[in-house]
């Protein structure tokens, strides 16, 4: 028999994997362009609603909706990037914050208009419901699935970034954007592709999150705080940093709610402020 702390740890890691998928795109794009995109979770919410609509109104199976959520968010993000964001790459932090939080506000109201402010539940396929018994621990199948997805995404990202030509361009642009331009790398195009991939991952995260945290129009603002915490704790532009930070925040949050529920979300804010005091650039950050 394993003590219950392992159950808390497992739930924390599963939650962390969800947060990782939600936040890794923002981390990479922030590292690339220093563009503070507070509308990131609006793209995640879009993915969530795509999954809800496809499953409920078109009877798609859950797994088929995941790529759809990914592509919908990626396509919409490219449109927004080309029309609005690209004008502000050289603007101040404040302008970027204002524009993107404005877009987040708009997305909340639009979601409320189409889907009301109610939670949107979906029914998971039978093979993801229920739980298995692992040495006396009750392991939820869906959480196990989240861990598998999180690890798969991490491996895929690391392989892409470390071992492909495109990944080398991304790394070069994160390390030194001007030098990368000087070597003939099309940083704008690299950024647009990365941005779309990151937003797509956020959309995937939004779809995966429905079963765990639900989906309502406030998602775009509520989870933004979590995502920003992970990005700044992990360090900009670092995939492994986001992974470590997501695990840390996920475990702190679940453990905090389990052992000291009266503190609420106090613990994760404390973890964030402490990490940033210790390392202002985040755990794996370079700048």
């Amino acid at each position, binding site marked *: 028999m394993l003590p219950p702390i392992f159950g808390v740890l497992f739930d924390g890691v599963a939650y962390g994997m969800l947060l990782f998928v939600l936040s890794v795109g923002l981390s990479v794009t*922030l590292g690339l362009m*220093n563009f*503070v995109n507070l509308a990131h979770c609006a793209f995640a919410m879009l993915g969530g609603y795509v999954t809800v609509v496809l499953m409920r109104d078109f009877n798609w199976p859950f797994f088929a909706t995941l790529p759809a959520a990914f592509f919908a968010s990626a396509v919409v993000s490219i449109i927004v990037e080309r029309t*609005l964001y690209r*004008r*502000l790459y050289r*603007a101040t*932090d*404040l*302008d970027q*914050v*204002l*524009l993107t*939080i*404005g*877009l*987040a*506000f*708009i*997305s*909340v*109201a*639009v979601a*409320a*208009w189409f889907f009301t*402010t109610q939670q949107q539940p979906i029914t998971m396929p039978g093979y993801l419901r229920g739980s298995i018994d692992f040495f006396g621990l009750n392991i939820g199948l869906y959480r196990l699935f989240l861990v598998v997805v999180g690890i798969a995404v991490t491996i895929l990202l690391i392989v892409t970034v470390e071992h492909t030509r495109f990944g080398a361009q991304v790394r070069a642009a994160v390390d030194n954007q001007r030098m990368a331009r000087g070597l003939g790398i099309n940083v704008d195009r690299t950024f647009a592709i990365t941005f779309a991939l990151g937003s797509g991952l956020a959309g995937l995260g939004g779809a995966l999150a429905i079963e765990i945290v639900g989906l309502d129009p406030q998602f775009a603002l509520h989870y933004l*705080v979590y995502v*920003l*915490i992970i*990005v*700044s704790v992990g360090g*900009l532009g670092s995939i492994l940093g986001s992974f470590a930070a997501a695990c840390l925040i996920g475990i702190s949050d679940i453990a905090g709610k389990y052992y000291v529920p*009266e*503190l*609420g*979300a*106090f613990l994760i*804010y*404390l973890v*964030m*402020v402490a990490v*940033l*005091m210790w390392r*202002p*650039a*985040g755990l794996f950050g370079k700048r």
Partner: protein
Amino acid sequence: MAPPPANPQAYLQSLSRWRPLEIAFWLATLLPFWLFPNYLGLANQIAVAALFALSLDLILGYAGIVSLGHAAFFGVGAYTAGLFSKFVWGEVFTGLIAAALMAALFGYVSSFIVARFRHLTLIMITLGLGLLLHSAANSAHFITGGSDGFQGISMWKVAGLFRFDLYGQTAYAYSLGVLFIVFLCARRLINSPFGLSLRGIRENWVRMPAIGADSRAHIRKVYTISAAMAGIAGALIAQTTQTVSLDALSFERSADVVVMLVLGGAGRLYGGIVGASIFLIARDQFSGIAPQYWYFWIGVLLVMVVMLLPNGILGGLSALLAKWRRK
């Protein structure tokens, strides 16, 4: 445009001269007493929000510190004023001073953290500290009343003469008076050499120490002053409405005040006041039509301000004015 004055002293003096438009503006703030006697409650809220936006303007508009957690000081001021009236006495001015001191203390302590960072980390630190205080106040149910709100504030008559009435006449007069006095202090501060060096830090915080202005020390000072002003704003809302709820510390309040300031024009003394007036009057008008879509219009407004009016409404107006004068 007049030619630039010959020496620095004359330059600073030319900045701080009162213009006719300013005097007209402050006289106009008295109009609600006669024109809108039923809206004095709203006018009081505007005065408080204007003071809060003015406090943010000092750090965001002048020193260039983007804060998403400024409500922390507003809330500290509000709770301090509430506790003071409950456990000491109900006199308003001493309550105001106590709130300002407490908020300044919180500001001074956190300024050591804030002055170390720039860019995204700074935004996250201010956001984190604000959220930290919000959830701490939520947990400290025995002091703050948690999500039920803080009860049991009773205020004496202002200066022993004016009772806080139902129509908000005393409340508005009181808040407006405090706003005006604090505004005079802020105006003096901005048009001083200290105010000039703050603008220098905003433009280039690495180069300022080279000409003898220590960026971090200046940021610590202005952050403390700004926190004290935000604390006064919080104390005003606690004293005039005689309740304090947890949303005094909330992220929405921090975000709203940034929106107000940017809408009016950051880095301008009147930006916060104009922005707060437009924001709250618009919210009052729109909320009757579609309460849950209010933030849609805020979002549209933000996108438009960033894309079309980079210096807010006042910046746009003064650009228009300059164009018109050149013709």
